[in-house]
């Protein structure tokens, strides 16, 4: 039995902690823990909120309208609602600056997954070929995590790319537009697969279709983006609650871990943190330390620790993030149909596009438009707002968006380092991202294939509305302290143990040596579970 300090309560941290507790270890979790507000009117639908809340505009847009999405050159079709602002708030004492990237940070209780869209896709052998362990080692952890969190999935054409193990729930029922796309695909699937390498299947989503523990199944309220009041959409807070029932678990919210101190052999002797409320410095001791603060924040802790001991401004190369592309489309055959806003708001369908090399597989999710903030969409139409509103309402039942993700690889010119801030003992995390020179051609080709596939399904992609999102938008950061079979500076072994600091474990995305196009959150949880099992 070891005494373990875990930094962060996100997807990696809670599954690492729960597995370690199940194996008899003593766990102390340190967390900034910005808290989710209590859900308002938990039984109300999206439409009912607007008529039943005393101030619906403050809820949906914020007191000063800070949730309004204004036109911008790289504008988005949606914004983070004020009810999710806590996910992205940065505490005092944490500074970062980025070039060629727009990173987000989360210090929320539950981390970024408080705002995820629940896509839970297992990596396959190809995705893991650069990882220093085999698929078999991760497979049982996927099963374990799937049973913990509840994932809806069925066997379909995407099984070719996404392994489907045990422990899955039945998926949620389709909305009419998703059902129509599904039917159209099945009438044309052989041609789409053969000529375009295009595959469509059900999204694997961590959203309950049946009760599980204290979580209720999806009540079809249309409030996914603003925060599911029944917790049908899994968030790490559910696993944190389970940890809190264990006698060997201690949760310390309200602290920002800044760095660690280590001895001549590199063994960490204590963690140094700052209490958010009053700025007081705190120290924590444990036999083992697990960094699970997210790739960027965990890396900053390592960099700060080196800097404070030796004055060295180290460089961590290999920062990765999935490039995201939003491709809106219209299914003209759906025009004239009603739209039910009280329904599951996120994606029911996922797509896969085969590329020249298996690692370059392009993954996407199709979200048909149900409940939504309409002003970001209406303003993007090339018409005055009155006319755009008329067009939008006419097209609404047939609108959808494909969110494409592209794989990323570690490169030396995408890296993290530190810059000391003048006049204080603080440092700033500096994030340098350089685009892969071949990426633009990959994006163009993926969009071309997708447009042809959508056209074959009877859908139309309006010209000029496809948006390549800035790096950082996917929030899939990884690769700065990678797992490696051979010892090397700023890397960790296949069990997640640092080669530099023998009692330090990297349990979040910083340890990934490759970033496939599939959403990484499910693998973060499974890998953290695997590391805790091997410890």
């Amino acid at each position, binding site marked *: 039995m070891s005494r373990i300090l875990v930094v962060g309560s996100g997807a990696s941290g809670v599954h690492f902690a729960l597995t370690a507790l199940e194996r008899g270890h003593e766990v102390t979790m340190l967390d900034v823990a910005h808290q989710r507000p209590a859900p308002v009117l938990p039984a109300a639908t999206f439409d009912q909120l607007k008529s039943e809340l005393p101030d619906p505009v403050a809820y949906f847009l914020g007191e000063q309208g800070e*949730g309004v999405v204004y036109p911008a050159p790289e504008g988005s079709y949606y914004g983070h609602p004020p009810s999710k602002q806590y996910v992205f708030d940065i505490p005092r004492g944490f500074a970062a600056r980025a070039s060629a990237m727009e990173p987000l940070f989360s210090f929320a209780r539950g981390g970024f997954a408080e705002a995820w869209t629940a896509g839970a896709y297992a990596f396959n052998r190809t995705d893991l070929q650069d990882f220093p362990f085999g698929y078999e080692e991760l497979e049982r952890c996927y099963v374990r995590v799937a049973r913990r969190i509840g994932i809806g999935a069925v066997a379909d054409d995407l099984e070719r790319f996404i392994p489907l193990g045990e422990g899955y729930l039945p998926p949620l029922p389709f909305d009419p537009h998703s059902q129509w796309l599904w039917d159209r695909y099945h009438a044309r699937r052989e041609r789409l697969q053969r000529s375009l390498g295009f595959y469509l299947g059900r999204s694997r989503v961590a959203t309950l279709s049946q009760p599980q523990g204290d979580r209720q199944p999806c009540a079809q309220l249309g409030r996914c983006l603003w925060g599911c009041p029944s917790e049908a959409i899994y968030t790490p807070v559910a696993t944190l609650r389970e940890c809190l029932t264990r006698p060997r678990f201690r949760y310390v919210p309200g602290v920002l871990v800044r760095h660690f101190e280590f001895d001549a052999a590199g063994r960490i002797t204590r963690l140094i943190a700052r209490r958010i409320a009053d700025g007081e410095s705190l120290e924590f001791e444990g036999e083992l330390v697990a960094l699970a603060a997210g790739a960027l924040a965990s890396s900053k802790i390592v960099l700060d620790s080196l800097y404070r001991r030796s004055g060295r401004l180290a460089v961590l190369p290999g920062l990765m993030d999935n490039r995201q592309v939003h491709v809106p489309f219209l299914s003209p055959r759906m025009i*004239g149909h009603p739209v039910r806003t009280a329904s599951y708001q996120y994606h029911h369908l996922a797509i896969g596009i085969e590329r020249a090399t298996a690692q370059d597989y392009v993954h996407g999710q199709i979200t048909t438009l149900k409940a939504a903030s309409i002003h970001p969409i209406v303003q993007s139409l090339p018409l005055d707002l009155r006319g755009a509103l008329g067009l939008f309402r006419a097209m*609404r039942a047939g609108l959808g968006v494909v969110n494409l993700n592209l794989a990323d690889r570690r490169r030396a010119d995408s890296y993290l380092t530190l810059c000391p801030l003048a006049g204080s003992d603080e440092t700033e995390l500096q994030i340098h991202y350089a685009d892969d020179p071949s990426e633009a051609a990959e994006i163009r080709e993926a969009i071309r294939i997708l447009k042809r596939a959508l056209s074959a399904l009877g859908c139309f992609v309006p010209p000029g509305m496809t948006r390549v999102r800035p790096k950082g938008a996917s929030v899939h950061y990884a690769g700065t302290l990678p797992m490696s079979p051979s010892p090397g500076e700023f890397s960790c072994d296949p069990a997640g143990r640092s080669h530099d600091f023998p009692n330090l474990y990297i349990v979040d995305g910083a340890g990934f040596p490759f970033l496939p196009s599939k959403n990484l959150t499910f693998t973060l949880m499974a890998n953290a579970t695997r590391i805790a099992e091997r410890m």
Partner: protein
Amino acid sequence: MTQASPALEPLGVECRVFCRYLVAQEPTPYVLSCYQRARAPGSEGAFPLVDRAALALARRGAGPARVADAYSRMFRPYGPLRRRLILLLAILENSPPSDRPLNAAREGSRPAIVTGMVLTLLVGGVCLLAGMLLLGPLHLAGKLGGATR
């Protein structure tokens, strides 16, 4: 729900006109109060001539507002008029009773809906032409003279 503040009446007048333009309704006191308390970033301060002209035209009524908006969508998409209209649209889509019609899909016969879409595009084109005639010369003059009076 809070009530509109009489001290901010010029904004209230603007809100009424823009509301008639966007949803063909008078704003409720709640919508008025929300429009007054929120501030669209970049929608206040000293603007170039064309933005001042677009705002002045839009405040004259629902028809002129559509003309000014059509021009702004194409030639001043990040300007103050678009920002104020988008702010109001965001408020209206979240406020009863305008939320339901704004969030609803048009149902019924597909040919009729498609015909309506074509007509909407035609009207939009006419508004854009009118906007180019009314605001285009001012825009050009402002650019040539660097005028930001």
